[in-house]
């Protein structure tokens, strides 16, 4: 049968506030267990939550960025369940009245098509702590550093129809939250995690099939693989005439399979009710408008500007603006190089290649945007050619200094002295008399093919430093032999 996949995503985004959602404790990754906690985070009797206004501001920013209704009155609710790393026995979240209501995002796929993904809601909630099983034999340690860390849970409509579309959507959310500066986007450290709700239905059928939920997938690649794996699993069952059980599953990247975690039968009754320790959050139109007016440039706006202002192609503009760090790098380098096309090519080409080789993020690049721009200036003014520039970049990457220092130290300046080039060519012609004769006997077409040999010889003799713009015409002239 021809199946259609229906996907809805829940993305947990950790907001990069200075302090926690309901306490003044610092938010940070990797601190000693339980050192970043207050009475509130530890769930001590009598401790009371105080709502962090910074998180509120960030949530409203996000709402604006996804064209959403802002919840002018939002209410915190308690989600009650027992777990050792949930210190209060409930998680403070939002249920009936979330801070961000209905919105949408237009997602561009690799093939250039665009589809609209509805956003159901985005609500604020606190994270739980962490159980440590390895460090204590026969016991479990509890680290509450993460307790009450602010999360924005972004829930999509079941509008997504493929793994590629899902990944494009998550990348776009990732790009938006990092552009807004409300999340560091570090998926490896859990700053963004994704739950995938997935079902299959025969193509053309209106009703949804039974869905499963895959919890806590934390990379773009795993999202794609988990979806493919789960589609295959569900399709196999359905093809065999079986039924899908509604359940929560885990994706195991090592075995590339999804595994049952718990079924609906042992699901909790969370007994949500409005948290009596927190008043409803009531916003004024003025507050909401002020945040909207001060939103930073978003990825799609930036891409449009790169095309109009810098004359980049749509493709280049989209690639460069997909991450704020890359866009910033490009703009800073271009401020120095003053050649958008050249800068774009080099950022997307050589620099990206080196970053990929070492699996580095652009923010971790050993060559900063300014130094990179200075290198591009030397290509533009013909001090070095493109080939030499690659070597210079590699040297800069290895920490050997600025572009100019390396060019100077290694004597890589292009030879632009016509006399010197003529002398060099004469030597080559003398040493290859037979080829010169062949050349002269050949027709124009053949000559065009043969000239490459002589260019190669000259470049080799000059150790790549001869300016190819000069070598070509002089060589052509001298080969004529007149």
């Amino acid at each position: 049968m021809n199946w259609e996949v229906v996907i809805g995503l829940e993305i947990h985004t950790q907001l990069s506030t200075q302090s926690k959602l309901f306490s003044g404790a610092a938010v940070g990754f990797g601190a000693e267990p339980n050192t970043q906690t207050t009475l509130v985070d530890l769930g001590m009797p009598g401790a009371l939550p105080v709502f962090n206004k910074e998180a509120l501001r960030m949530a409203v920013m996000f709402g604006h960025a996804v064209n959403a209704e802002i919840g002018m009155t939002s209410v915190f609710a308690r989600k009650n369940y027992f777990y050792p790393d949930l210190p209060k026995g409930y998680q403070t979240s939002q249920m009936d009245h979330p801070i961000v209501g209905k919105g949408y995002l237009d997602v561009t796929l690799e093939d250039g098509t665009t589809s609209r993904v509805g956003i159901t809601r985005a609500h604020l909630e606190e994270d739980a702590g962490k159980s440590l099983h390895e460090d204590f034999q026969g016991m479990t340690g509890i680290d509450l550093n993460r307790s009450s860390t602010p999360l924005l849970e972004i829930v999509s409509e079941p509008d997504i129809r493929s793994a590629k579309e899902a990944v494009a959507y998550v990348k776009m959310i990732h790009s938006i939250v990092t552009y807004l500066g409300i999340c560091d986007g570090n998926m490896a450290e859990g700053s963004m995690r994704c739950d995938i709700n997935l079902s299959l239905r025969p193509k053309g059928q209106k009703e949804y099939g039974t869905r499963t939920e895959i919890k806590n997938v934390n990379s773009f690649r795993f999202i794609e693989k988990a979806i493919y794996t789960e589609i295959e699993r569900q399709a196999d069952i359905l093809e065999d005439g079986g039924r899908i059980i509604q359940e929560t599953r885990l994706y195991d990247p090592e075995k590339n399979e999804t595994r049952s975690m718990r079924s609906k039968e042992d699901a909790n009754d969370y007994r949500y009710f409005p948290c009596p320790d927190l008043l409803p959050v009531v916003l004024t139109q003025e507050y909401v408008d002020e945040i909207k007016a001060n939103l930073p440039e978003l990825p799609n706006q930036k891409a449009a500007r790169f095309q109009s202002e810098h004359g980049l192609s749509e493709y280049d503009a989209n690639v460069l603006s997909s991450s704020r760090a890359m866009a910033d790098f490009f703009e800073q380098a271009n401020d120095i190089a003053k050649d958008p096309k050249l800068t774009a090519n080099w950022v997307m080409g050589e620099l990206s290649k080196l970053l990929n080789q070492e699996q580095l993020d652009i923010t971790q690049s050993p060559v900063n945007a300014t130094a990179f721009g200075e290198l591009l200036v030397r290509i533009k003014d013909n001090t070095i050619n493109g080939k030499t520039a690659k070597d210079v970049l590699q040297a800069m990457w290895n920490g050997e200094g600025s572009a100019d220092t390396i060019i100077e130290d290694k004597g890589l300046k292009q030879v632009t002295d016509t006399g010197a080039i003529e002398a060099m060519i004469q030597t080559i012609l003398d040493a290859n008399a037979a080829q010169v004769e062949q050349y002269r006997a050949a027709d124009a077409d053949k000559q065009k093919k043969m000239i490459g040999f002589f260019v190669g010889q000259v470049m080799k003799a000059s150790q790549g430093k001869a300016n190819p713009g000069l070598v070509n015409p002089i060589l052509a002239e001298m080969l004529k032999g007149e």
Partner: protein
Amino acid sequence: MFEQSIATLAQKLRNKEISSVELTRLFLDRIKTIDPQLNSYITISDTLALEQAQAADALLSSGKGTSLTGIPVAHKDLFCTQGTLTTCGSKMLHNFIPPYESTVTDRIQQAGAVMLGKTNMDEFAMGSSNENSFYGAVKNPWNLDKVPGGSSGGSAAAVAAGLAVAATGTDTGGSIRQPASFCGITGIKPTYGRVSRFGMIAYASSLDQAGPMAKSAEDCAHLLQAMAGFDEKDSTSAETATEDYVSGLEAPLTGLKIGLPKEYFGDGLDSQVADTIMAAVKEFEKLGATVKEISLPNLQLSIPSYYVIAPSEASSNLSRFDGVRFGHRCEDPKDLLDMYMRTRAEGFGTEVQKRIMVGTYALSEGYYDAYYLKAQKIRRLIKEDFVKALDEVDVIMGPVAPTTAFGIGSKTHDPVAMYLEDIYTLSVNLAGIPAMSVPAGFVDGMPVGLQIMGNYFAEAKLLNVAHQYQQHTDWHLQTPTMAKGA
């Protein structure tokens, strides 16, 4: 000395007629001799009290301090006190020594008061008789066979017996007013949000409110002065400015409009209690007040609505007592579920377990709308009743409880009769308005409290009304026989 008011004692401390250390010793000695009969204290913090008294004396001799400096007080054992055992009347917290201080006790300490100890209470503030304490029932100093009321029964008994000059209490459904009434002392439950709940172990967060319990309205005013005010650590604490509760006490009552809700004088009210209340109202008329009958038509709905909302919140608030981080943990748990179940079964008493189960049920899927949401709607009606009534009158008066203190054990097997004890008090908590209990007479040797209710943030008015009454009556000056002579 133990019968004297805060103002008088403050004067004597300032005049060096007595030192705080002497005064504190006097009360600690009284506790040692008298409290074994009453069981009003769970913890006596004598070392700390004497240290604080010394500090108070030093401060007083430099001419500084407030009216509370050097005055020995007691705190209900649900206020977290740094370094001092805080049990909430429960086995669950039999070993809990908080590393932090509640805002209420902190402010009272900042005002210079001396903490004698922590008073007994119904476990997690659930009860109307103080029979639900892991540390045993408290006795009523007027008759040791009777209950002192609850849940702040230890504080009420301690103040009535002269084992503390004043004490803190908390009131979720009448837990300050009913024991104050049963023990013949004065207590005020302020407007919800007037006093910070930070560091107060929660029973039902949207109803809990701390307040002072003392012999007179004037003493309550001194204590409330220290307790009240905005606290950034409690999001539900009100930013409304506090009034000067002491300086407003002397205002005359001429023109005061008193409302008597007819629902407060219907079936179930003991006729002698009713007569006592009406006699008190007459006294107010003599002071220039006028009386008007009013109606609070939804009063009878307050008990079912309270007994849905309070347990619902409690079921969630008490989830943190799971044996993981502090308090009681069962021996040798098999696994996680076993630890949760045995810890909670061993740590909580039956009334607490009962309310957790009621609350869990009321919030569960399929019942939420029928119970919790419905109760919240009733709550709004009750609030509207009060708002409407307080448009017409300045204060509302009525009984605190249908009877005087009942016999220990007499209602323990009839939970509904026990819950009906709170019929006149808990609607006030649902509405969030302030209310107090003022001694208004005796029936068969047991004290009767007059309840005075007022508008939001009208604590100063209530204290003024009560104080003027106490200037013309001496019910609040009576001392139980067992407390005399020691």
